[in-house]
């Protein structure tokens, strides 16, 4: 086997990724990604939302089949068809949402499918003992006979890690492991990871928290828009360089200058709080303005928008529409006030794929179109036709939405709300997974809606160039708090990302 002349060390790579590509519908999630993970190192994988990290992890662990490319573990080519095979091959991953059995004990979760046995019976004592040993080996003080349902999120995560750790574990992938942990709990996790490294396991650490990456990683790999950007020792990359590599793009979206003046505040949020999700969010969106909300996945942006839309009655704080306070008790109540929400999950929540374009577009407006309680097919079709023209939807109005492309589905999702003549549009990742051409169209539509039709638009987006090109102002949410409220002129991608990843001073690994 040839040793690559450009590889940094003569030692065989623990995991070599070569030419991995994967696309979903119109979007290229990974494009010819190649790099290596060295044995016994902590290797950080960084990149924005949508950079391809999760897809890569899915391919490595056998959840997804790549379109092209190969994987080699310790020099041997491997192809995993499912996570179990990956586990057998020494590759394990721990995700943000625990993959555990809450009704069962910690010990049972650790040994699922591989119960220690005496004869045909499960040896519970041995299972408990072995689990306890595993846990203490890693430095976790957990009662193995405790039910997982009674654990904290951190403890659940520890159980998953304990489950993954086995003799023969080559690679442990941790996806955003500290996103839900307190600093104390994070400390414990750092200790475990260091221990694993000392034992020779390669730990892949996926995180947005710069100070963590800096503290832990030996090597850092930056992905951007599905492509591999750089793999380098941590000492060679400082924070600024990392961020630049994460965002730097050659594609620049056009910014169309605004001539129309802004009006009064159309949507005002004051001290919005939802326990455990977001805290003290206050901002305003003026008539004719497009405000972007940037931040990392899980920061709480969608939750804020959904709460304003009336999906979270427990939210406290005040919402004002055109100066009038409204109580976001239900979506119907908010639609009544002219506030509409376009969900992030287009296929599951934004449209009803098994119904026609007409039915989808008319759905929120049925009551209005009814005469004496009966639907008017003619009026519905007129509505659908006019929206189709206005938004250039490709498809006949009697077609099922499931037959449309992602971009056109999004237009249908948008059309259903535009048909209600809203005043405030809450858009959640409106151009996620859409081809470039349709993206531009959607941006034009948004500008028209805001500037000509005087709507107030709040757009959640993880696409930084999009945010900069389309928005007049940018809000940044980090861990449930508003960390920045700046005009587009002042905003740069680096500044936004820095605000998104910043945690208030004083918290961070006690080095």
């Amino acid at each position, binding site marked *: 086997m040839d040793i690559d002349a450009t590889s940094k060390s003569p030692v065989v790579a623990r995991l070599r990724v070569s030419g991995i590509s994967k696309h979903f519908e119109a979007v290229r999630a990974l494009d010819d990604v190649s790099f290596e993970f060295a044995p016994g190192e902590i290797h950080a994988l960084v990149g924005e939302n949508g950079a391809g990290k999760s897809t890569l992890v899915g391919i490595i662990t056998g959840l997804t089949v790549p379109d092209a490319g190969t994987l080699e573990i310790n020099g041997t080519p491997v192809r995993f068809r499912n996570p179990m095979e990956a586990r057998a091959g020494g590759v394990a991953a721990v995700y943000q*949402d625990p993959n555990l*059995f809450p*009704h069962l004990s910690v010990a*049972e979760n650790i040994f699922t499918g591989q119960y220690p046995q005496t004869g045909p019976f499960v040896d519970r004592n041995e299972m408990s003992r072995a689990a306890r040993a595993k846990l203490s080996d890693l430095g976790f003080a957990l009662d193995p006979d405790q039910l997982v349902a009674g654990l904290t999120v951190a403890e659940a995560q520890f159980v998953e890690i304990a489950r993954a750790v086995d003799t023969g574990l080559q690679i442990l992938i941790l996806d955003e492991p500290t*996103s839900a942990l*307190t600093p104390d709990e994070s400390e414990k996790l750092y200790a475990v990871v260091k221990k694993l490294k000392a034992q020779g396991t390669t730990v892949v650490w996926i995180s947005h928290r710069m100070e963590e990456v800096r503290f832990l990683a030996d090597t850092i790999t930056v992905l951007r828009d599905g492509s591999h950007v750089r793999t380098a020792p941590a000492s060679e990359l400082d924070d600024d360089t990392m961020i630049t590599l994460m965002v730097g793009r050659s594609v620049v979206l056009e910014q169309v200058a605004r001539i129309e003046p802004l009006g009064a505040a159309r949507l005002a949020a004051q001290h919005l709080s939802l326990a455990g999700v977001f805290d003290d969010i206050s901002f305003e969106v003026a008539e004719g303005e497009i405000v972007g909300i940037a931040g990392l996945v899980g920061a709480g942006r969608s939750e804020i928008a959904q709460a304003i839309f009336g999906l979270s009655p427990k939210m406290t704080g005040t919402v004002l529409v055109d100066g009038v306070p409204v109580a976001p008790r239900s979506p119907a109540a908010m639609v009544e006030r002219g506030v509409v929400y376009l969900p992030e999950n287009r296929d599951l929540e934004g449209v009803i794929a098994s119904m026609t374009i007409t039915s989808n577009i008319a759905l929120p407006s049925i009551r209005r179109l009814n005469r004496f309680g009966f639907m008017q097919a003619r009026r519905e079709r007129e509505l659908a036709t006019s929206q189709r023209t206005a938004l250039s939807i490709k498809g006949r109005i009697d077609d099922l939405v499931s037959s449309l492309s992602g971009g056109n589905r999004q237009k249908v999702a948008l059309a259903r709300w535009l048909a209600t003549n809203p005043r405030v549009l809450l858009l959640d990742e409106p151009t996620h997974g859409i081809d470039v051409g349709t993206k531009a169209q959607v941006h034009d539509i948004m500008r028209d809606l805001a500037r000509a039709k005087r709507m107030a638009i709040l757009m959640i987006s993880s696409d930084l160039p999009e945010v900069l090109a389309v928005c007049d102002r940018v809000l940044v949410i980090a861990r449930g708090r508003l960390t920045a409220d700046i005009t587009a002129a002042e905003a740069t991608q680096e500044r936004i990302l820095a605000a998104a990843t910043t945690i208030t001073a004083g918290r961070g690994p006690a080095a």
Partner: protein
Amino acid sequence: MSGTTAKAPLIHRLRERAGFSGGAAALRVRFIGVIVFQLLLVLVFTALAPRFFTWDNAQSILFTAAILAIAAAGQTLVVLTGNLDLSVGSIMGLSAYVVFNIASGSPDLQPFVILIAVVVGVVLGATNGFLVAVLKIPSIVATLGTLSIYRGIVSFYANATEVTSGELPRWMRTLAETSWLGLSSYVWIALVTIVVVGTMLRMLPWGRQIYAYGSNPKAAHFFGLNSTRIVIGAYVGAGVIAALVGLLLGARVGNINSLLASGIEMSVLAAVVIGGVSIWGGAGSVYGAAIGAIVLATINNGLVILQVQEFYRLLLQGLAIVAAVAVDAVVQRRIQSATKRRRTMGADA
């Protein structure tokens, strides 16, 4: 900075340490709840009618509960996987009929009656399992269908003739009548069955896999557990147990016509659900189901003693199911929230 743990009141920390917080507590409380409910029932009925609290009466209750408890043990297997088996009554009837027919027709097969019943149970149970696990027909639909198909087969077979237990092997007939230590043999059989099934569920890998699958089917799939095998296995188990109960019923009742055990499914399900076996799967045990059977038998007995109309039993049974499911819904939410909760905000708020 130690985050929320420092701020949480002492009592909460103690509760967490003792495993009595959130989802784990909910499960424990649920089981204890049934026991408490049973004790309450006994208290109430005794207060209303002192006759209730006699050994004789207890025997009677236990006897009624016995058959139900055995059937409930079988149903528990299925409900643990998140499914239902409405065909148990029909399986009982069909198995009883087939066995007694064969036994009376060919005396040399008499030693094998149990085996024949088991075979019948396996076949019928496997069919149920196939429909649910392979064809992915919702279990309510599948077992509602097999309920009538199996019952129909009985009458086909029987052509409306009866079989009397006079043709049964002698030892079966005597078993049905015997009592040991003051309790009917059926009570002892029930006890043994429950312990056996409970031990299997607790100590065999297959049993643990049933719980795992019921607790989180997605994770089960992720860890390579074969869901088809688990579900079919549960239905086969339920089928075998139902078939054996059919034998017991037949031996006791004396003659078997095609209507044997018709309509028993409601009571079996009620026992299971009341006993804490959650309809969502993954929670509960055969011991809980057994207590559920005792609860039902107690209610029945108490109502008779109080000379209340028999019809209240159905009403109470139905209400108990709704109440049990509502409670289980709360428990389920607690359990899920314990591991799905992702704190967006830091705990240093």
